[in-house]
């Protein structure tokens, strides 16, 4: 029940995120703010303290492309750790189909994690073996596991959608796009397990029905949502 409650809290947090109709006024406001933030980011990037990606006892997300990639890497490490635990001992009553879905997702997340580990140069990369606190999840409970899976996937999609603009290298942006649609497929599959044949696979809780846009959120909004699962301090210079 605690997990479901947490899930509800996360859902309500999400509903406050950026998903709203793209009016001209919002459009200008958003564009202007982003431009200002980007300018700030570039100046931060010049700070020496900003370039230490693994300060003692924590990780630091720098205000540049490496910061965004490390942000993705941290989220993928979290997801991979979660699913590894799920498939190491399935909740009782898991059907063969559920197991196959969760096994596939576990491998995909491990691939995402290990891809970032290889793609980000060591000097610019946060720690590889991040430990996580998953004690709020009851791994023997189907509702708890699938509820957490749904929250992780939805958060991942929201995070990638919101971080895209802060990536300056077009190739990195494309790779983020290659990953985020797979995360969205995961979320739809998990949501279908929880509530088959419903509209939940692309539910109104994550997609604003009036404009058809999925939620997106900046790193500074997403990090506090996932921080409870981290055992290291996260400092971030990302917007």
């Amino acid at each position, binding site marked *: 029940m605690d997990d479901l409650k947490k899930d509800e809290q996360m859902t309500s947090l999400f509903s406050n995120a950026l998903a709203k109709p793209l009016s001209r006024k919002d459009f200008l406001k958003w564009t202007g703010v982003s431009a200002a933030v980007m300018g700030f980011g570039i100046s931060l990037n010049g700070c020496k303290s900003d370039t230490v990606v693994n300060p003692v006892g924590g990780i630091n997300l720098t205000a540049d492309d490496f910061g965004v990639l490390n942000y993705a890497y941290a989220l993928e490490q979290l997801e991979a750790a979660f699913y590894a635990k799920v498939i190491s001992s399935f909740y009782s009553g898991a059907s063969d189909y559920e197991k196959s879905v969760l096994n596939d997702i576990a491998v995909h997340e491990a691939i995402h994690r290990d891809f970032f580990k290889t793609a980000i140069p060591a000097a610019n990369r946060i720690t590889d073996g991040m430990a996580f606190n998953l004690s709020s999840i009851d791994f023997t409970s189907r509702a708890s596991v699938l509820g957490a899976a749904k929250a992780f996937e939805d958060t991942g999609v929201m995070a990638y959608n919101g971080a895209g603009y802060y990536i300056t290298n*077009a190739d990195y942006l494309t790779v983020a796009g290659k990953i985020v649609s797979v995360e969205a497929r995961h979320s739809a599959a998990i949501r279908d397990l929880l509530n088959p044949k419903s*509209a939940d696979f692309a539910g109104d809780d994550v997609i604003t029905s009036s404009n058809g846009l999925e939620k997106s959120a900046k790193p500074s909004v997403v990090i506090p949502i996932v921080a409870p699962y981290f055992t290291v301090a996260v400092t971030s210079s990302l917007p």
Partner: protein
Amino acid sequence: MNLENIISVIDKETKKEEQFTRRDAFKSAGSTGLKVALAAIPLGLAATLTKNAFANSSATVVEVLNFALTLEYLESKFYSMGLLASGLIPAADRTIFTQISNHEGAHVTTLISTINSLGGTPVSSPVFDFTGGNGSGTGPYADVFTNYATFLALAQAYEDTGVRAYKGQAGNLQSNAAVLTAALSIHSVEARHAAEVRKLRTLKGWITFADAGALPVAIYAGEDNQTQLGVNVTAATGQSIAAVTEAFDEPLTMGQVLSIVDPFIV
């Protein structure tokens, strides 16, 4: 409609944007209050705003949005017609297709208003031939609205193509935060749709290798890529090639997408 015609329609709309200046931006802001808003803010910031909101409403951004709009017209019309075809979609699946149809309709509205916001001209909807017969009405999918299996197959084709189409254009929208983020936020919705439709077809929600089943191979061409940012991901992760290809969705170029949808556009 042949491919050249589609491209020329998009080009024609785009040409109008090429001479689009800051002055035009003010002019076309008209009575929306934007002119007042722009005039009221300090010059430096106004320059930033116009740069972001208008200078970048260059050929590329509007062209991309009109391309996306064309695809959304296709999807929206397809699902509307499917839902209206009596006896086509089983009662148990109507909730799913109603949700998808509503999203595609909303995407059309969002793209039109975004193109208008940029001072561009939204393309109008083409006429579609969902049999894939280029207007003959007797293409390979002639039973699309009487045979649910055919309808599902085309739904998968459109959704997976849509995901690839948006992904392929992300790099062309980098200059504009709002447009890029909106495009990404449509992209993930299409991916959710794709996964659900694939599930209805008893397929995995993700794409293994470049497996097209009985659909045209062009829709999945390149999905078997294993190299990302120069990294051979199979070697780097020690996972199976199948899983590596599932873990990354691949983009298509505008030309590739237009040739896939060409048989469906009159």
